[in-house]
């Protein structure tokens, strides 16, 4: 493949546009962090006061420490478990593979705020599972409102994120090495430890570093589970800064956001180095190796299925069960018989209040059409980076992961300002377009990875042969690459749809009359205590996600690639 040629212009334009879309809000936040008041205020002066405040605030260090413990703890749970699930599902002959592959990813598609509510109802201090256990053993042996509780829940719900990376790495491994080990009489566990594990180590480390990033920006779980006992992480610390001084202190919020970026950059650098190493491993594998699976045997099947079953129960059944129950009752907990409280009233409000039904419609529009448009954008970006290892690709990698470092709340606020203060954009602010742009940026790293994964599967020979017949790069993409990846595009569309469906923090500042979205509506309803409505909305959101997932599968989405 020629490194240069007529794709350079296209590449630079795309990367340039993307840089503007990402760097405008990020730059605004960095600028804001050096001011003494909102950037638009006449009183704003340049200086380091905001940094001085944050860096001398005990609560900041406490939140930073808690965030670190939270993130690493989460990784300590998610990575081994995700790796184990990936191994069982990709490398063994476990039963019900197809179904498991789908189920394993489910927690990823439910917003963390919904998950947290669900857990409260099922395993909170007075949850129905907790009370059931208490009746048997006398006490509730866990407390989800503690740091360990939060870590466990976050860890379990991030298992899919690890699974995605590790399973695709495992899928590309040739099985001959494992088989060779098996023939020497090694047990399946020895094989996985001594043969498979070293080969997927880069993927595991990569997944771990990505999960640390996710841990640093988690908002829903600490908000719902940490708040009551005063457990604060950096994102909830930012949230506190909106009220602590009476009027919002954007400069302080910006400083914390900058800290998050500074933590992220070394992680991105480390990931890039890992990926380079990972390519070495991949080269070792060669192409077209026949993938056969390890035989688990009967007892192996039972053990493996039990592990997955238990994990699924804890991370899917408990939270979704909790939300479902809550949506159909008007009271729960201590001394309450749930059957007596059954009601459909929680859903009535959806019909009575236009903003709620509009929120549902908008969410669907944004997910279905916005998701399709987002895939087109990610594809354009993906092609710009396709088979390109130059400097522009380094730039691209950092740009893509930058928004990942920032909490959705902060990105939403920054985009609100961009759409308010950039003259040509102002008419778009009260429309779904502003939300769409923010969503595209928030979903960038995930979406691009999906597309890159698909693009990389196009055999280079096909592109090369097209090129040798004189086709331009543009024509090669149009006539060769895109037709080949089309099935992958459909799958990516469905997955992005689901990601947009569950987003909540980004819309908090951007949504207005006519542009309500489900996730952000739930955050604002929390202020006035409309928990019945929130539960109903959560359930609707889960049902929509289920529909999206079903569609994804109909479209032949390859979730694991």
């Amino acid at each position, binding site marked *: 493949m020629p490194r240069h040629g007529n794709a350079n212009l296209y590449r630079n334009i795309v990367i340039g546009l993307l840089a503007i879309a990402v760097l405008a809000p990020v730059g605004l936040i960095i600028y804001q962090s050096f001011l003494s008041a*909102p950037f*638009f*205020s006449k009183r704003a002066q340049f200086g380091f006061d905001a940094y001085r405040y944050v860096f001398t605030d005990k609560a900041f260090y406490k939140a930073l420490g808690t965030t670190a413990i939270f993130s690493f703890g989460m990784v300590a749970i998610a990575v081994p478990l995700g790796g184990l699930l990936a191994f069982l599902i990709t490398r063994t002959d476990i039963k019900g593979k197809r179904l498991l592959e789908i189920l394993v990813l489910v927690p990823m598609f439910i917003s963390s705020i919904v998950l947290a509510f669900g857990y*409260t*109802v099922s395993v*909170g*201090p*007075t*949850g129905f599972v907790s009370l059931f256990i208490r009746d048997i053993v006398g006490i509730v042996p866990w407390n989800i409102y503690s740091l360990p509780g939060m870590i466990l829940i976050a860890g379990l719900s991030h298992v899919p994120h690890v699974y995605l990376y590790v399973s695709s790495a495992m899928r590309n491994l040739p099985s001959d090495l494992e088989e060779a080990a098996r023939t020497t009489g090694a047990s399946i566990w020895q094989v996985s430890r001594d043969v498979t594990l070293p080969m997927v180590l880069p993927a595991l480390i990569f997944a771990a570093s990505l999960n640390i990033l996710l841990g640093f920006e988690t908002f829903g779980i600490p*908000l719902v589970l940490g*708040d*009551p*006992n*005063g457990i604060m992480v950096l994102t*909830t610390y930012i*949230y*506190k800064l*909106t*009220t*602590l*001084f*009476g*009027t*919002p202190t954007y400069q302080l919020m910006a400083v914390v956001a900058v800290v998050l970026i500074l933590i992220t950059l070394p992680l991105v650098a480390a990931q890039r180095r890992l990926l380079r190493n990972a390519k070495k491993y991949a080269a070792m594998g060669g192409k077209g190796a026949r993938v056969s699976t390890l035989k688990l045997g009967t007892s192996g099947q039972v053990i493996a299925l039990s592990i997955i079953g238990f994990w699924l129960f804890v991370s899917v059944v408990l939270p979704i069960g909790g939300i479902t129950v809550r949506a159909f009752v*008007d*009271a*729960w*907990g*201590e*001394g*309450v018989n749930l059957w007596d*409280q059954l009601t459909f*009233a929680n859903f009535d*409000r959806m019909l*009575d*209040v*236009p*903003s*709620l039904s509009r929120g549902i419609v908008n969410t669907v529009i944004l997910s279905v059409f916005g998701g399709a448009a987002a895939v087109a954008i990610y594809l354009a970006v993906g092609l710009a980076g396709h088979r390109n290892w130059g400097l522009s690709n380094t730039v691209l990698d950092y740009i893509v992961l930058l928004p990942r470092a920032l909490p959705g709340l902060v990105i939403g606020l920054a985009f*609100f*300002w961009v759409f*308010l*203060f950039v003259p040509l954009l*102002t008419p778009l602010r*009260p429309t779904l377009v502003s939300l769409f742009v923010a969503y595209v940026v928030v979903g960038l790293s995930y979406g691009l990875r999906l597309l890159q994964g698909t693009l990389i599967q196009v055999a280079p020979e096909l592109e090369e042969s097209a090129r040798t017949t004189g086709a331009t790069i543009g024509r090669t993409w149009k006539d060769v690459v895109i037709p080949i990846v089309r099935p992958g595009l459909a799958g990516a569309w469905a997955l992005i749809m689901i990601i947009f469906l569950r987003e909540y923090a980004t819309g908090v*500042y951007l949504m*207005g*009359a*006519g542009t309500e979205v489900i996730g952000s509506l739930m955050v*604002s*309803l*929390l*202020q*006035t*205590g*409309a*928990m*019945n*409505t*929130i539960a109903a909305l959560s359930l609707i959101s889960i049902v929509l996600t289920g529909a999206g997932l079903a569609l994804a599968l109909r479209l032949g989405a390859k979730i694991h690639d």
Partner: protein
Amino acid sequence: MNSFISPKGFATAAVLSLMTSAAFAQEVPAGYPADYAAVIEAAKAEGTVSVYTSTDAAQSQKLQDAFTAKYGIKIAYNDLGTNGAYNQVISEAAAGQVTADVVWSSAMDLQMTLVQDGYAEEYKSPEASKLPIWANYKDTLFATTVEPIGVIYNTKALTEDKLPKTYADMITFLKDNKTTLQGKVATFDPEKSGSGFLHHSNDARNRKDFWDLAKAMGDDGAKIYSSSGGMKETVVSGENVIAINIIGSYALDWVKESPNLGVHFATDYTPAFSRLALKTKDAPHPNAAKLLIDFMLSSEGQALLAGSGLPSVREDVTAGLNIKTLNERVGGGLKPIAVDEGVLEYMDQMKRVQFLNDWKAALGR
């Protein structure tokens, strides 16, 4: 309405309305100045009015529908929360892109800050004379509701007769029941909730024994919440037995739908806050804004709000609770927070930090 117009006037109006094919004159509410017809006409031409608010659409839907039905003017209803409303108003003003016509928020201090910083515009509402004096700040900021602050409790764990009758008794109650209440008392976190800060600091301004109450809550291992939703849910489930300084207007509604929830007020002292409305400076739809504020303050609008659980500041409203019947409901100790500069006391940063430090010390955090 027509009965207030003389037959001759009515005939004139009828002719006029036939001539202009729109019945503006008939719509001027009773007691309003005659030139109000011009305001209505201009407002209809504007066609829409944009509201930035912290009130759930569910609680104001009837008001919105009635307003639109009456004038044919659409309400663009933006539920942004207290901080969101404030944030967007100052941001939009700085960008010269004002979209909000009316700001209607329960953050009394933020609303007053908007007024003091010049984001609001004076409007002499024809309804203003019907409001209590404390509810109108210089014809710029109007109280549209009066909402008591009280406690909610789990009825499976406590019964109303066990609950303390006065503010002072609450302190004793918290001290005397330390074992049963340990870790089961909830209240607002003033650091994370603007409403919580307003309620607690208002108590601190008015009650010397507020700090004894805070200390007693701290001794019971009280948990602090950033939202009403968090508190309500934990009391519904019995995880917490009681939540103190909760928004009583919401609670009066919650108890109707959640059978194991009770609401209770102290008879000697029940503070009440108000949702305040202001018309923005440079409002893009100034006439529609005036019309909406008047409608919110009118007996019709007040009745619709009160019927939806937001008690009326006017005594002449019979739907739901009004300021008088509410006072009876809470036992006679209703003390509305006046709409004046007093609400700004803790906007002073030194005082604010001091208050929060005292609070954390009292709670033992």
